[in-house]
């Protein structure tokens, strides 16, 4: 004996189990996008309301988190008056090589330790916020939300190759921004003052 209310109860139970359980991840994702708790709260609430209304369109067995991230990001983009234009992207391989050059430029400074300084975190957040949205979303999804390239591609609605390009470009820009910050703050030397005796 299944009447309509049983069906609805079952549907709601499923929603709570699958979707609502992702609240912590969606909150972190929204917070990364908005960088503002009250905006993030609105965004999270709207995301779950939309997800609840569209629950019949969710395909059971697929990554629910990625589905929620998609709704969340679309809502975030819609809520903003101006949408940033696409950024020109280099081939991922080229980005990887240029990142190697970021490393080469600080080869003699212990920047890998600088990355992990606790007081660098606010600078990382600012640098992330300053990235063009398409790059930022790729970095947030893969680096902060641990999504595989394929899931990130689904959220962003682009091919996997584009995710790689955006991700690698975003990471490189972040490194460059943070390197500049670290030099200005005196964490690392700003010129190539090496301890290689041969330089003298």
């Amino acid at each position, binding site marked *: 004996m299944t009447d309509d209310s049983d069906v*609805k109860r079952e549907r709601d139970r499923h929603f709570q189990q699958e979707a609502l359980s992702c*609240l912590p991840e969606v*909150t972190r994702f929204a917070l990364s996008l908005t960088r503002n708790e009250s905006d993030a709260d609105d965004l999270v*609430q709207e995301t779950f309301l939309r997800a609840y209304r569209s629950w019949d369109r969710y395909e059971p067995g697929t990554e629910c988190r990625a589905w929620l991230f998609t709704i969340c990001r679309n809502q975030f983009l819609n809520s903003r008056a101006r949408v940033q234009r696409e950024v020109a992207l280099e081939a991922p391989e080229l980005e*990887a090589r240029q990142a190697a050059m970021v490393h080469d430029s600080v080869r003699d400074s212990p920047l890998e330790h600088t990355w992990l300084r606790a007081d660098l*975190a606010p600078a*990382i957040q600012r640098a992330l916020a300053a990235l063009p949205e398409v790059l930022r979303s790729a*970095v947030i999804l893969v*680096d902060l939300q641990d999504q595989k*390239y394929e899931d990130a591609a689904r959220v962003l609605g682009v091919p996997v190759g584009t995710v790689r390009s955006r991700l690698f470009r975003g990471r490189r820009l972040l490194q460059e921004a943070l390197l500049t910050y670290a030099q200005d703050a005196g964490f690392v030397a700003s010129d190539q003052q090496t301890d290689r005796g041969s330089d003298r």
Partner: protein
Amino acid sequence: MKFFHRHKHTHEHEMLDCEAVMRQLWDYLDEELSPDRMAAIREHLATCARCYPQYEFEQSFLTALDRAQQEHSNPDGLRNRVAAALRAEGMSEI
């Protein structure tokens, strides 16, 4: 009772040069490569004085990025708010 070690030490890994490792370093860190390629790069990194520092550099960067994540100050408050909004939308309490 017999246990067979079935490792295939056939050295069928392609030999990787530094350039190839650099190109795929991020894919490697993100664990997005085939198991064979992952193993080949892991092997290269273990012995390459040129690539290993680069690897450490990128890895600590990714760790820093992950740690810099902002945390919500009142997750319970938000949970209650979302639950209330969903109930107002008709979701049954379960």
